């Protein structure tokens, strides 16, 4: 009569570890796993200095960034689906991605600075969410339907603003903006990991602590209130935590789609439960592993870097279709 821990849960929880190690080996300069493990454990060995530099200076920040991205997008997606009682919602529903895209375009196109693009994208992502939330708020309540509608409107506004920037800057910069929008981990360094750590960490801890109460939110506002939940405040916390995580990631690596949809759904289907006590932590693990693997393909599948955002969409959309059409398994009624 207690929560049972199943072997599958343990396997999924441990999945990121081997994926992390293998990801450090993969690239245009392959490094044997034994060497990588030796390096990680700090055992002295006689590898060339360049291999050490590749693992610790180049690959590790990139792989950690992919893991952070997977955690942020999956956990915020899972939380928002539960909060909105809607399976087709992810962290972009509140205008975060459109806001961040506009901010990045301003930074790249007008200020010509990667650092400015990152800061502006993060701030614009938060601004877009703030506008959505303010627009949806009526008489001290923020109904789900109003939030969704406001999100669509704010997304449209920021998309138009983005098009305006693309239209006025010179074509080279437009190309740069477009490439940024596709999402990639290729430029991620330790400073990016540091930039994302605080917002992603804060958001994750908060959502992890609220994981069981989120179940009550998916009963609908009135029932959640009757069960003793301060619906308005809880939903605000979930939205802020999700937005913080998603904005930090989008501002750093661009827009990576579908992760927030397919990871939580796969976890719910594999473990046959919508209970967020299980879905939130395991979405973090599976999301981290998924984006690390996707990024491995992005850098090693062909001779040149593919934008990882294209890969996640190419693999995510058909997989999602398969999940929805699979017979006998329902995560949604």
């Amino acid at each position, binding site marked *: 009569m207690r929560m049972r821990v199943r072997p599958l849960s343990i396997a999924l929880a441990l999945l990121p570890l081997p994926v992390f190690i293998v990801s450090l080996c993969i690239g245009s300069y392959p490094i044997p796993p034994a060497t990588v493990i030796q390096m990680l454990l700090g055992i002295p060995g006689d590898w060339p200095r360049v291999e050490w530099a590749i693992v610790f200076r180049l690959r590790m920040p990139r792989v950690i960034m992919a893991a952070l991205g997977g955690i942020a997008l999956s956990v915020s997606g899972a939380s928002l689906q539960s909060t909105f009682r809607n399976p087709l919602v992810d962290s972009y529903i509140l205008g975060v991605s459109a806001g961040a895209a506009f901010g990045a375009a301003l930074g790249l196109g007008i200020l010509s600075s990667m650092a400015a693009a990152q800061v502006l994208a993060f701030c614009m992502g938060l601004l877009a969410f703030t506008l959505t939330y303010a627009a949806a708020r009526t008489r001290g309540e923020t109904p789900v339907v109003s939030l969704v509608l406001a999100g669509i409107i704010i997304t449209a506004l920021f998309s138009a603003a983005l098009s305006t920037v693309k239209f006025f800057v010179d074509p080279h910069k437009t190309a740069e903006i477009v490439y940024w929008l596709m999402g990639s981990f290729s430029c991620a360094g330790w400073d990016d990991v540091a930039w994302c750590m605080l917002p992603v960490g804060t958001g994750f801890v908060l959502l992890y602590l609220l994981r069981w109460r989120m*179940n009550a939110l998916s009963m609908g506002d009135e029932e959640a*209130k*009757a069960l003793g939940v301060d619906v308005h405040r809880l939903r605000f916390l979930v939205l802020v935590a999700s937005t913080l995580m998603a904005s930090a990631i989008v501002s750093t690596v661009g827009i990576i789609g579908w992760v927030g949809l397919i990871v939580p759904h796969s976890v719910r289907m594999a473990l046959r439960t919508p209970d967020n006590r299980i879905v939130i932590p395991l979405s973090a693990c599976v999301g981290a592993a998924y984006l690390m693997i996707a990024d491995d393909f992005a850098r090693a599948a062909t001779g040149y870097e593919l934008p990882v955002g294209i890969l996640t969409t190419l693999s995510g959309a058909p997989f999602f279709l398969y999940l929805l059409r699979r017979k006998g398994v329902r995560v949604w009624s």
Partner: protein
Amino acid sequence: MVLRIRGLRFSYGGAFTLEVDHLRVREGEILVLLGPNGSGKTTLLKCINALIRPESGKVEIAGRDIFSLRRRDLARLVGYLPQGHVPSFPFRVEDMVLLGRVAHVDPLSAPDRSDYEIAWSAMRAVGIEDFADRPYTELSGGERQLVLLARALAQEPRLLLLDEPTNHLDFRNQALVMGIVRKVAREKGIGAVMTLHDPNMALRVADRVALMSRGRLMREGRPQDVITPQTVSEVYGVEVERVGDGNGMYIFPALGVST
């Protein structure tokens, strides 16, 4: 006294006004709200659970003014069985019932062993422990109603509010749900306020009945005093026939249109 209402007034933008001057429910007592659609039964239940806020008046549960309580504290006093629950995710029955513990569990924490024990005793009280592992979305309407009732009981409330608990239930399940409500009211001293459509069911289960019409309490008292062919016919606007008398009394509408 579990519930005490005084001078309650609520209106939906002038079109409809609910006015209840005085209403009380004692420990272990079942009060049935009876009245036609739109007479204000559900509105009254929502006022008692602070889901809507009246313009004036006082509602006290176990001696505490509900509008000054936090949601969390109120949910420890009142369990609510909503009308027309819309399922979303296929939670297991046990996880659904466990949600009754939200008001008792620390806000940043998850339920512990004692919460599971209370959820299980609530499941046993309504007889659903056999399908604890099944997704509640796959249950029949009657079984689902029992799950929601168990969830309300897991709140360990002093007062139960039930909004048309017999709606959409078959003959047997109606009796089952009513029997459970009466049992927990008697055994645990929980007060209950429920809305019903069937005067005969009210005669069977109610300790007291309040007959409502157009947002007002027309009559209130013992079931056999309140539910008579005259009052029912007046409030519902339909001719009725009485079959039997005293405790064996039943009221049936005369078929056909009347005004």
